[in-house]
């Protein structure tokens, strides 16, 4: 991601970024609560942090939270992994054959340019209102993130290293195991960091229209019943999940990237 890595050197040298973000979030929530408590804005329109926390408690007790969150996470994760594996296979295949690359890569570039969410009505129409349109959308979005990153990784010039390994007596298997795969790891992690939030958002967007349980379904239901609290409670859950996943992947990125200097 471009944004978060730009923390200005001169700004708050002593405070880590997560603390800055936490403080700002707390200040924002406090201000929001204050505006509603004082009566400047009606709870009906803007809800309030207190109401949202109460609603989340209700959902936790009534089971709505897990009944909707788990299906969403399942679809997002499965779609994400399917896309990653498919992209790996396709990227390796196209990188190893110039002819295939010229023929199929051309089509892939065109498919990449399609506005994917605009295809959702078509998927719903052809595949029904179950889980399958969600999977199709998530795979279609995440596939290209991995595909283009892996192509960049596979295109990295490594002829010198490969020759050196050959002189040292490495077999084909050793080259793949100790050179090809390790060079791809940073590209995989970078793809995961871009793809994971997209998988989550893609799933939720498709769930606006499907009939199976999911966070998008929960939010859509809240919006049709003009229930700002329910809507924002759903948004809050997704925001927290997104931040947690990004944090995990960033740590992984740092740990894996260390040896690359």
């Amino acid at each position: 991601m471009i944004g978060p890595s730009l923390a200005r050197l001169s700004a708050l040298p002593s405070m880590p970024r997560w603390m800055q973000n936490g403080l700002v979030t707390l200040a924002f929530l406090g201000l929001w609560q204050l505006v509603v408590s004082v009566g400047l804005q009606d709870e009906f329109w803007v809800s309030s942090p207190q109401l949202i926390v109460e609603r989340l408690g209700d959902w936790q007790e009534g089971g709505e939270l897990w009944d909707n969150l788990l299906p969403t996470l399942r679809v997002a994760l499965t779609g994400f992994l399917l896309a990653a594996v498919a992209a790996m296979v396709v990227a390796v295949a196209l990188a190893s054959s110039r002819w295939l690359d010229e023929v199929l890569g051309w089509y892939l570039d065109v498919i990449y340019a399609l506005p994917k969410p605009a295809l959702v009505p078509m998927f719903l129409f052809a595949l029904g209102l179950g889980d399958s349109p969600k999977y199709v959308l998530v795979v279609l979005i995440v596939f290209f993130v991995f595909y283009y990153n892996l192509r960049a990784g596979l295109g990295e010039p490594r002829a010198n290293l490969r020759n050196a390994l050959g002189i040292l007596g490495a077999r084909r298997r050793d080259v793949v195991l100790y050179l090809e795969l390790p060079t791809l790891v940073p590209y995989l992690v970078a793809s995961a960091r871009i793809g994971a939030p997209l998988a989550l958002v893609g799933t939720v967007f498709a769930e606006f229209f499907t009939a199976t349980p999911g966070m998008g379904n929960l939010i859509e239901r809240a919006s049709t019943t003009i229930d700002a609290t329910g809507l924002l409670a759903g948004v809050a859950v997704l925001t927290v999940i997104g931040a947690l996943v990004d944090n995990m992947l960033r740590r992984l990125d740092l740990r894996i990237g260390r040896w690359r200097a």
Partner: protein
Amino acid sequence: MSASSPSSRSTGFTASVWVARIAILVGALVFLEQAPGTWVPKLFLAKPSAVGERLGEWMGFGDEDPILWDALRTTLLHAGIGLICGTVLALVIAFVVWRSTVLARSVEPLMAVIHNVPRITLIPLFVFWLGNGDAPINVYVIGTAFFPMFYNALQGWRAADRQVIDVLSIMGARPRHIFATYLLPQSREFILSGLLIAAPLTLVAAIVGEMLVGTGIGGMLSLYRVSFDADGLYTATVVASAVGVAINTAVGRVNRRHRTRMLETGGL
């Protein structure tokens, strides 16, 4: 790669590539033309010939109203207005953050926090607050264009040479002079790069917003889906896809000419 450099690539290779590309396209079209009614229930797919016919009607080659142009204009306006307003807003806020160390301490983390909220889930809220019209779409598209522009501009200005700025201000230049004569030209590449990332994203955002509100091409997609009009739905999908491919092609061309530092953000 010397063996396969473009000059040594034989014409036979190029010919076989084009034959294969066209064969795939023709095969897909023939399949789609034959499939409905034979392998797939008629309701689920539209024949390319029916799509072509409907497209002709929408463009005005028949007795029907040429509804395509209005829808296209609406969608492109949503995308364009969002891109312009989002860019201006992003440049203003990025400039504030870049200039002041005090404000930057609170504004920048605030942007990071807002950036983390999945925007797409907020559209129903915008509709709830602003009514079922253009306003929620505009807000959503502006929000989409904002972040690539904001982070790219900020990155560009932070790469600026502090010494040049110090010298300029010693010579009596005001911030706006420094901005116009040094900062903006110097960061041209970054801002162009932000625009190239944002442009295709705003189109997608406009269509997504329209799907939920019911105007433009996005509105057509929603309408024909719920009215089970397969030909209409697939035609609208083809139109949306064509616009997407056109914008991406233009972006790719500009990017190749100016070699910006475009980042693969893999947006929706």
